[in-house]
């Protein structure tokens, strides 16, 4: 599902991340672990096509994410990758349903409210579909962010520090939701974190 070869990214003359080779098979869950500043987010951004690495190649579901035009990267990201970001990042002025519709639309998929209801129900937030995103609690917003990442059934889900802002109880719940959703859709899950509380939940780890 994910193939990385000879990846190196420099910033201001300094190498911020270096991954000589890394393969993650379809349906696997992997952890990218490392302290702050170790390049975890840069690696995820490079996999997602948001950052162009200085060297190396990345392939997602058999398609090149590096060495292609920005438009191709954007399209590949929209169709193949679900992102859960560190600080949730929902669009506050629209509803939960509309946040998920945007993800469908940008992926070029037809509007599918049944799928949205299904995902929201599986995360136990079906009643929030009509609520404005800015009215949600942190925990609710976390679930909506996960729902948005999986609504298009992407083969790859990237989660950047999804639990670092949560207490122990919510940290466990959020991670379980992510793993369950990835499993339900058969997606590959890559979680980048410095949060040692979750390292034992992953058999496959990349330490930076």
């Amino acid at each position: 599902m994910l193939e990385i070869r000879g990846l190196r990214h420099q910033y201001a003359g300094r190498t911020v991340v270096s991954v000589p080779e890394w393969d993650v098979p379809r349906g696997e869950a992997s952890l990218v672990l490392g302290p702050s500043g170790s390049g975890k987010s840069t690696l995820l951004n490079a996999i997602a096509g948001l950052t162009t690495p200085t060297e190396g190649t990345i392939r997602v579901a058999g398609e090149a994410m590096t060495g292609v035009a920005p438009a191709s990267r954007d399209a590949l990201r929209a169709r193949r990758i679900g992102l859960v970001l560190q600080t949730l990042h929902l669009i506050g002025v629209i509803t939960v349903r509309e946040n998920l519709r945007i993800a469908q639309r940008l992926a070029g998929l037809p509007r599918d409210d049944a799928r949205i209801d299904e995902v929201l129900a599986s995360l136990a937030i079906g009643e929030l579909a009509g609520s404005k995103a800015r009215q949600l609690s942190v925990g609710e917003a976390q679930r909506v962010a996960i729902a948005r990442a999986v609504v298009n059934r992407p083969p790859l889900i990237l989660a950047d520090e999804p639990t670092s802002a949560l207490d122990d109880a919510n940290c466990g719940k959020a991670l379980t939701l992510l793993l369950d959703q990835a499993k339900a859709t058969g997606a590959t899950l890559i979680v980048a974190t410095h949060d040692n509380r979750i390292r034992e939940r992953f058999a496959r780890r990349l330490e930076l």
Partner: protein
Amino acid sequence: MTTLRLAFAYLASRPLATILHVLMLALGVATAAFLLLFTSQAEERLARDAKPVDLVVGAKGSPLQLILSSVFHVDMPTGNIGLEESKAISRHPMVASATPVALGDSYRGHRIVGTDASFLGLYDAKVAAGRPFKEEMEVVVGSEVARRHQLAPGAKIVGSHGLAQAGPGHDEDPFEVVGVLAPTGTVIDRLVLTPVESVWHVHEHHGGAQPAPPAAAPTQGGRLEITALLVKYRTPLAAAMLPRLVNSSTSMQAASPAFESARLLDMVGVGVQTLQWFAAVMMASAALSVFVALTSALQERRYDLALLRTLGARPLRLASLSLAEGVTLLVSGVILGLALGHGAAHALGLWLAQSGSWPLAGLAWAPGEAMLVAAVFAGGFATCLVPAVQAYLSDPASLLAKR
């Protein structure tokens, strides 16, 4: 979830600021649209009313006052001129036609004009009901006079001295309406026309008892007078010679309606120009406020834009989102402004129609309005482009890293 829907959602999330930006732009557009309507219709009206007359010969005084009183019928005459002296002008070989005008009275604010049959020909006026006047104390009324006061052939009306509705009346000398004119869109629609002899007849009874405003009437010496002569040239050369001849060799003055109308518009134009500048400053301020609003909005939601990029949105979509927001403000402001400007003109037009002045039409387009709208859109669009380009160039990865 379209780009436009998302732009609306952003605008709706800040209702007060959105309304203020739209209102600011709307007030500028409304002022400009109102001024365009007013000036274009005033110019058109003046040109239409003045067109049939090449030269007005009347008593010495202000030439503008002579034109205003004898052509546009909105001011007091400068005085009277002798009928015999005026006939000498009528007979001049450079004169194609000369129409006498004898003023002094009005009917409910509408001027009663003593004249002859050639006056109808000046404005191509046709009798819609009844017949043209023939005898003393017969009148034909303009379409607007007939409509406002429900006059038809056979009706009797009584004039009052001067232009004021409450002036002293000539109850003992009623006029008989013998005809109603078809609408022409010119000043004749608001006039009451009668033979010159009627005016002389009415004022014979009063003699010099009512000195102001001047009324055409036989003087004590029995010399017959009229207020002015409306002249049409036989040849273009007359424009250069006839006014000079009248002004230098007679006790009368000659004034050109075209020249005096232009002078009047110049005088009014200073005020109009000031207001137009004021409207332009208002619109520029509004454009600036939209720019500030969009730039600050862009700053506020830079993480939303970064998020949209992570979801696969192309930079062009982010730019179009910012543009859609600005254009929505722009379109709303222009539509509201045009509605306000035209509404105000329509309301003023209704009020003016009540008072018998010329009707200002609010439900019409002024020639310059398309240009106004185009200029506002061009300026506004250029203003919106800057934040749109900023949105286009935003780097999602660095923004998310800062968060």
